[in-house]
């Protein structure tokens, strides 16, 4: 503990990040550049999210990390232990007990409250990136609200697949102004982005961008009038807890084509099992 400043980053860096966060909250959906630091983990492992979390944490916080919905995968375990060691904060796997939740690719199934902050790890913050490679041009498009190109992507999806095949990182429009990449969450989670009680912060370390959604922000998924947005999930109940309303992972269990569907949110699933719900594959 003595080797590090609280939560690893020095106080000036945290101030700089907090400024970017405040600016992001003031302009929902706008990508605020910030001086991203080298973190003791590779890019792509959540360096942006970690920096945002470091700037937010206080000694009284309870911290939770989610990786693809799970609390016990490599990314989640390593980031959780990183802050246990460098900040000494309490950690938890229960969504309701956490005050700061860092997440990769999922929004928890349980509704969040006004006392919580959700921090997303973002690989590529620019929703227009794969359509327009020039950063100078995408910035101009954001500032002039030229978002026709985003629909060209959806158009291509429909013309090629017959429906909008984009199933994650589905672009949204924030408060009728900025088009935003919600990070690679499944589009099943998109409806939860809007009107959420918790603060949502997005950190992209390699790309050096922070953006934010203040509580109760209007977030609309882009679509066509005749091909409306649909929040899709696998059409099964959870094999372990029998939930029908949660996002499911497909798990291959043998090489005979056997498979099961389980909740991707492990906390939600274990809580339901503890409450006596039992799926068809539960032991």
């Amino acid at each position, binding site marked *: 503990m003595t080797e590090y400043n609280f939560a690893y980053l020095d106080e000036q860096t945290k101030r700089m990040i907090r400024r970017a966060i405040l600016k992001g909250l003031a302009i929902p959906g706008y990508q605020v550049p910030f001086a991203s630091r080298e973190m003791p983990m590779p890019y792509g492992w959540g360096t942006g999210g970690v920096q945002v979390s470091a700037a937010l944490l206080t000694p009284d916080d309870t911290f939770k990390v989610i990786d693809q919905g799970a609390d016990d995968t490599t990314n989640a375990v390593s980031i959780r232990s990183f802050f246990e060691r460098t900040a000494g904060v309490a950690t938890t796997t229960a969504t309701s007990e956490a005050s700061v939740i860092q997440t990769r690719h999922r929004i928890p199934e349980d509704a969040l409250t006004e006392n919580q902050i959700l921090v997303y790890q973002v690989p590529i913050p620019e929703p227009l990136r794969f*359509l327009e490679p020039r950063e100078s041009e995408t910035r*101009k498009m954001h500032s*002039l609200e*030229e978002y*026709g*190109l985003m*629909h*060209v992507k959806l*158009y*291509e999806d*429909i*013309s*090629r697949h017959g429906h909008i095949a984009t199933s994650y990182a589905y672009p949204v429009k924030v408060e009728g102004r900025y088009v935003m990449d919600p990070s690679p969450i499944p589009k099943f989670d998109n409806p939860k982005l809007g009107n959420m009680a918790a603060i949502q912060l997005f950190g992209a370390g390699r790309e050096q961008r922070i953006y934010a959604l203040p509580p109760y922000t209007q977030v609309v998924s882009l*679509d*066509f*009038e*005749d*091909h409306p947005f649909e929040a899709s999930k696998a059409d099964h109940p959870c094999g372990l807890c029998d939930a029908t309303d949660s996002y499911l992972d497909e798990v291959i269990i043998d090489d005979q084509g056997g498979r099961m569907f389980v909740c991707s949110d492990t906390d939600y699933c274990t809580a339901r099992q503890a409450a006596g719900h039992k799926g068809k594959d539960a032991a």
Partner: protein
Amino acid sequence: MRPLLSVQGVSKRYGAHIGCADVSFDLYPGEVMGIVGESGSGKSTLLNCMAGHIAPDAGKVIFDTRADGPKDTVTMSEAQRRMLSRTDWAFVHQHARDGLRMGVSAGGNVGERLMAVGERHYGDIRGKATDWLERVEIDATRVDDRPTTFSGGMQQRLQIARNLVTGPRLVFMDEPTGGLDVSVQARLLDLLRGLVRDMGLSAIIVTHDLAVVRLLADRLMVMKSGRVVEAGLTDQVLDDPQHAYSQLLVSSVLQV
């Protein structure tokens, strides 16, 4: 009648070098203006100044906007200028690759401008895109193919469809037939002439091919070293050139 586009004293310098100097003319609705001259005479610089791609050092480019009447496009905000360039203006590049999105299907290319001005009904967009492909003589079954699979002439026609789908009033063309073989050129010119007449378009065509302006342009400007040396009705300039350079230009064309 009020001119659609009024160019007044437009100049552009590249350091000590002159791009174009003190060019003025009026373009009236439904009129096609040709700009000819040798390479480096400032034709493309002038065109880019008018289309808002580069800012002129001096002069005004006044466009008769639908909403607010004549406005100087040089001093208007970038947002307004870009709005004009995807609604009332069209720009046909010499190389179709510069004007198309090569990774996007033909339908998506044509639909982009529709979506940019707020069209949000997939069926309608696709219907209009297919309709436009047929108008530029591209088979409707190719609507989902990428332009990379198209021939040069088809790419150029696709670029024209993509530009005209929002019903612009002014089309800028930079050597639209450059790099195409003569039979394809002839077909493209025929198509362009038909579209210009049917839609009542005004157009400014930059080219060094006198045959193109003979067929398409009502009026002609001859440029040399950044200045307009002669201007007038196309047939008049081509049949009875007054300036020494115009005479050279006309006499350089091989008569077959």
